[in-house]
């Protein structure tokens, strides 16, 4: 494959990143995604839209988020300086709110009166419920029945925020089925409903739009590291489920040839077992949820269930831009197992007094692995995409402690 002049110009006008992305939805939805695309293109060039979004990100979310030098983690690994981008300090406790605020402003511009969303662990559901409360929209969140059971605290938070949580009983009753059900709702409520997708995936324009809203992560990080260290990092890394925090972190660095970029997927119980969510390592290209991208599937093209200890990474697909970045070789994708993630979860808690989300713990696990092989004068930045309070029950169970 030829090296492109820039890795930041995609997608094309049909939403393709190389052979990935596109619009694979039922005909009923085609006019709606065109309408959304037009509305987003108009908003992008409207200074008032950006000004309002920036104001909310500053005063409601608490941006910019700090770029924190993890001194004791650095010493513990004995390698390069490790910085953490603190998305866990955002309002609602994760990066998800960056995207939800952008989309809710768009929903209002489009005159929509109802928000729907899908959620896995519940972090996007909470963020969607939060912005819906803030802007006075009724909100319905689809969540797999299995996830409703294992994330009870987030279900309560969503209800407290005024959202209706609908437990999805079809298929594997997890995130992919929640997304199917949200699509079915959208098809049935075409005139008034705005579908707030939580990750950089789905039919065009979602992957590009969500990336743009999340790119605030990488844009801030780039300026912050230049200010702190006077140079760009040698390695930037983030966890990848659908891949929204990762693409937000990576995108502003894609054309910095000296910056190595690593995505970290969930290896679950191991990529040599059927129990993982390592789509880019183990999947093959396929079509699901409106896009062509790497996908965990069997030899009949049936979608396989993913597994990860972190519900937010428990998804058999991945955003299309990651698939393209994988194939071009610009970003390298690795994985971390459930065990490595839990070890990193504990390590960061003890070393830095920061309890990371299990999702983000996969990126920390990768950092701890690679830091040992890198020289001390290098710089690493990892995205700490969310806080780990929500995972207390899960990790306690693994550690054999009763709460």
């Amino acid at each position, binding site marked *: 494959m030829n090296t492109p002049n820039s890795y930041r110009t995609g997608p094309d006008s049909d939403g393709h990143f190389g052979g990935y992305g596109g*619009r694979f*939805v039922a005909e009923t939805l085609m*006019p709606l995604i065109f309408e959304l695309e037009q509305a987003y293109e108009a908003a992008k060039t409207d200074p008032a839209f950006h000004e309002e979004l920036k104001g909310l990100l500053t005063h409601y979310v608490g941006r910019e988020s700090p770029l924190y030098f993890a001194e004791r983690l650095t010493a513990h690994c004995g390698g390069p300086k490790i910085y953490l981008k603190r998305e866990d300090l955002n309002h609602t406790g994760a990066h998800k709110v960056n995207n939800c605020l952008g989309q809710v402003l768009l929903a209002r511009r489009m005159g929509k009166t109802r928000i729907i969303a899908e959620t896995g662990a519940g972090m996007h559901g909470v963020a969607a419920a939060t912005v819906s409360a803030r802007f006075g929209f009724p909100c319905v969140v689809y969540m797999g029945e299995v996830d409703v059971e294992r994330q009870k605290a987030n279900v309560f938070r969503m209800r407290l925020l005024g959202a209706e949580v609908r437990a999805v009983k079809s*298929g594997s009753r997890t995130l992919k089925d929640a997304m199917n059900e949200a699509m*079915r709702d959208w098809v*049935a409520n075409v005139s008034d409903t705005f579908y707030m997708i939580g990750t950089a995936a789905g039919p065009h324009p979602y992957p590009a739009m969500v990336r743009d809203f999340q790119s605030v992560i990488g844009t801030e990080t780039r300026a912050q590291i230049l200010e702190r260290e006077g140079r760009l990092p040698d390695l930037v890394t983030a966890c990848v489920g659908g891949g929204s925090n990762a693409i937000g972190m990576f995108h502003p660095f894609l054309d910095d040839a000296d910056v190595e970029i690593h995505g970290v997927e969930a290896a679950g119980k191991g990529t040599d077992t059927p129990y993982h969510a390592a789509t880019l390592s183990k999947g093959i290209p396929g079509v699901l949820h409106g896009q062509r991208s790497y996908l965990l599937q069997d030899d009949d093209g049936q979608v396989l269930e993913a597994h990860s200890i972190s519900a937010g990474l428990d998804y058999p697909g991945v955003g299309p831009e990651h698939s393209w970045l994988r194939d071009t070789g610009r970003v390298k994708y690795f994985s971390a197992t459930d065990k490595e993630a839990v070890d990193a979860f504990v390590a960061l808690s003890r070393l830095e007094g920061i309890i990371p989300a299990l999702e983000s713990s996969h990126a920390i696990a990768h950092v701890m692995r690679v830091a040992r092989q890198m020289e001390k004068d290098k710089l690493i930045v990892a995205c700490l995409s969310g806080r780990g309070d929500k995972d207390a029950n899960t990790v306690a169970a693994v550690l054999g402690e009763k709460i």
Partner: protein
Amino acid sequence: MSRIAARFEELKKANRAAFIPFITAGDPDGETTAAMLEKLPAAGADLIELGVPFSDPMADGPSIQAASQRALKAGMRLTKVLELVRRFRKTDAKTPIVLMGYYNPIHKYGTALFVKDAVEAGVDGLITVDLPPEEDDVLRLPAASHGLDIVRLATPTTNDERLKTILNGAGGFLYYVSITGVTGTKSFADDEVHAAVARLQAATGLPCAVGFGIKTPERAAAVAKFADAAVVGSAIVDRMASGAKLEDVLAYCTELAEAVHGARI
């Protein structure tokens, strides 16, 4: 002339609409589907829509979702769907079969290879729910060279400009999704669907079928007065799911067929 075109021409001469039953291949197992397929033409089916099960049927309501799950659990796969069609063609050379499903199993099979194998098996058309005109060259171009019809869908959200895109490359017949919603969930007002179908018929020479909201012989008859075909899916699938005997399901199909065939008398 293709089997689909020949069948609609026949019906037009007789001033009758087509009755198109939908069943999910492999629900509850392959042998039942084979028996059902063999008997459907005698029960009054003019064309048959055979659902290809998929793990994530986003455009389907609870009935067909469950049918897909049952079929997959019983081991149905795309290669076996083609086998079912091949078997059917040993007893019936005239009744068109249209496969309805989602793109990923075809994508995984390999689109060009699938088109070739499907035509060889005796498939006449494909409805691929999540493959809009913008993305379907990969399937439509090989299909065109093998004489396989790509059946496109129009919906209540389709405006005139969109309709042009849909019709450009459409084959076999045009499928009007009569509701905004998933299969088997809502019903529609006859006059609205009548107006919508009239608009489609004015824009294309292709026959126009109506589906997604027809649950009773009465509704099928109402649609058959103006549409070129009435598709019934969930109502048949529900009877299969309830454990009804095959002959009872077929008797219900005959009721639907008679309602459709008698609608213009």
